[in-house]
């Protein structure tokens, strides 16, 4: 935490030195919900839900929908913690010893590697190829990647959107330096887009589809999603209880499959839990995206143990972000994934997922 006012005569942006400074302070500075469980036996599994956790496979498990009984399946009580805005802060919570299991984006994984978070990768799957979109106002003269040259594009830096944007610009031989890059959170980006403060806005589902319908905007063709998503466990959980980790992973997969097999019922249940506020538009968008398999969890019905493609893609993302200056250092993703301590856990997960 910065306790000093910002220096008045700084040139350019502050740059953190060392990836550890990306925000993972010393573990001591992170107070989670009490002490870590370093020596004690795990008496319950603390599962992090991203956002309000009211419309995803974790919701099925936390509310026992669709006949799921996760406590019985795993053989340990599973408690669910909501209120993580993204998977990156969950990595901090794992480091602080207050979370045992979570979804994680590739960017969160890289952050965890750089920050020395004691986390074990369990499964990976490619995000839906059409999960990210670039929005432009209806009738905009921007029709393709090449047209973005010199134009302002809003993006939440250091996310899946950033990676897609870099790759999309590459298709026209452009780099981030060829556009006016505007780093904004999704809420601020939407406001900026609505007021025409920016020419384009890149984000992922369901945010961007909801915004497209709300603002009656157009999307650019050929924008793709390249990165992988993961599920991870704390080292303590994974190493001490590989069988239970594997069972929980399979429960997540089966919950996602149930959502896709029963979309009407699932979305109805999510709506009843307040997953879409009082917005029918939000509910409709979500339902459509489940059907089209365009959500972050859409691949979770088919995930498997970490494959080389997931490692390569994540390494490429890390290298790109390092070149962009998002990460001050290069990160050895491949070396981390090759850690032999992960092998027994992977074996347990592979065996469990073989059960249909």
């Amino acid at each position: 935490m910065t306790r000093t006012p910002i220096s008045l005569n700084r040139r350019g942006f502050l740059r953190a030195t060392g990836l550890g400074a990306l925000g993972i302070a010393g573990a001591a500075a992170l107070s989670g919900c009490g002490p870590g469980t370093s020596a004690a036996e795990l008496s319950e599994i603390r599962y992090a839900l991203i956002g309000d956790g009211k419309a995803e496979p974790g919701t099925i498990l936390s509310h026992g929908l669709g006949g799921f009984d996760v406590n019985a399946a795993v053989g340990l009580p599973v408690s669910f913690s909501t209120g993580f805005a993204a998977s990156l802060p969950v990595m901090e919570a794992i480091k602080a010893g207050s979370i045992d299991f979570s979804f994680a984006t590739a960017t969160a994984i890289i952050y965890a590697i750089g920050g020395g978070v004691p986390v074990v990768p369990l499964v990976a799957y490619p995000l839906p190829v059409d999960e990210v979109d670039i929005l432009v106002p209806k009738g905009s003269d921007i029709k393709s990647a090449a047209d973005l040259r010199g134009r302002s594009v809003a993006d939440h830096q250091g996310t899946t959107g950033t990676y897609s944007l870099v790759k999309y610009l590459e298709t026209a031989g452009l780099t981030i330096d060829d556009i006016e890059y505007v780093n904004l959170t999704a809420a601020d980006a939407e406001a900026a887009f609505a007021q025409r403060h920016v020419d384009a806005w890149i984000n992922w589902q369901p945010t961007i589809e909801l915004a497209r319908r709300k603002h009656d905007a157009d999307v650019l063709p050929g924008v793709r999603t390249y990165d992988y998503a993961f599920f991870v466990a704390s080292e303590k959980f994974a190493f001490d209880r590989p069988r239970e980790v594997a069972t929980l992973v399979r429960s997540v997969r089966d919950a996602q499959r149930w959502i896709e097999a029963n979309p009407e019922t699932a979305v109805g249940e999510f709506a009843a839990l307040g997953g879409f506020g009082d917005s029918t538009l939000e509910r409709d968008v979500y339902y459509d995206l489940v059907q089209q398999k365009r959500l972050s969890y859409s691949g979770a019905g088919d995930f498997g143990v970490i494959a080389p493609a997931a490692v390569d893609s994540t390494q490429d993302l890390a290298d790109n972000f390092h070149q962009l200056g998002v990460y001050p250092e290069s990160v050895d993703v491949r070396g981390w994934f090759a850690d032999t301590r992960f092998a027994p856990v992977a074996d347990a997960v592979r065996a469990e997922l073989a059960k249909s």
Partner: protein
Amino acid sequence: MNKKMRLAAFVTAGPGRPGGWRYPGSVPGWLDASYYHNIARTLEDGRFDLAFFPDILSVPDRFAGSTDSQLRYGALGSLRVDPLPVMASMAAVTRHLGIAATVSTSYAQPFTVARSFASLDHLTAGRAAWNIVTSFQESEARNFNLDAQFDRSTRYERADEFLQVAAKLWDSWEDGALVLDEETPLFADPDRVHRIDHEGRYFTVRGPLNVPRPPQGYPVLIQAGASSKGKDFAAHWSDVIFCSHASKESAQAFYTEIKERAALFGRDPDHIKILPSITPIVAPTSARAKELAEEIFELVPPLGGLSTLAYHLDVDLSTFPLDERLPDVEVPGVEGHYHEVREITERDGLTLRQLGKQYGGRTEGGFIGTAADVADGLQEWFEDGAADGFTLQVPHQPGGFETFTREVVPQLQRRGLFRTEYEGTTLRENLGLDRPDRGEWAIRAGGPA
């Protein structure tokens, strides 16, 4: 740990912080009801106790004797929508959020104000709060038939009597005086509605009020006095105190002093909630938070900040050299803000120009970092006796409220520091304050004036 912090949101019905309106994500929706509705819904999602609207009754002209710098830079007094209609509009889309509007005792009549807040308290089912100010600008006096404002002691003397009259008017209907018995008939019981026959130095008011006693007894009373007179007034009358401190240490000193004064005046110190102002900058990583703070800071024009500071201090700062330190000055305006800038000036050795930028872009408490970092800092202030909770200011609206609600509130909830559901139905219940009995004004006023 079952003591919970309280959260107020400082919402400006105008551009507010200098430069904030220039941030790409800022929405210039101050003249649009839906803008306030969205903010109200966000705050209620975040389980905030209340939204708090500051106010001002003129476009300040304290800097170089002109409104130019305020208008040009979109400084805090450039445009300000009347908070009372905004408040009513926000209440219509919420069920729990308390809503506080600022009304000055120097340029209003107690009957009008007592009636407005009693009405709002009924229409919101007990969620109204009044932020009491005495005003400190010549430019405001000139909008109300006066050549000059009252001096500070007159302002507070008048405010004290104003509060007594308002409270007597709220008490002029006994609870239950509205009978609505169609058979008898008895609409309102004449034996339970009383004249107040107040005759004082500043006001002569007969009463009764034409609105029954408010659901909360009195609306929640908020005050922000930091001068010695202001602190006395606040310790006498306030349910909630809004203040502004550059460091935890000065916040602790103020906190201790107010609680001691309250006890001295025969009030329960726990029934005064002190909520210092904070302006956190939150991002996924601390490096990004620092960058973001820089970006926002760069949007502040030094003269915009100085214009606001000149208005706060009621001193024309255009008469001092910009590249030297601000000398010691007599401050007719807000002493609290003067202590704050003295602290910053001495600590960081700032010239007046730098001070203007720093003041306009100040982030009280320096809560800059990840959501966990910010929650750590708030927890520290809260547990170390610097605050009963906080008044959230944001560098830009409405995105700043969304970020705090989405990122920081869950952190506070997970630590058991903040509610996950509203405890009660009225603002007093959520703040953990008693409903005043009729006649409590006499205790708060410290005996008959």
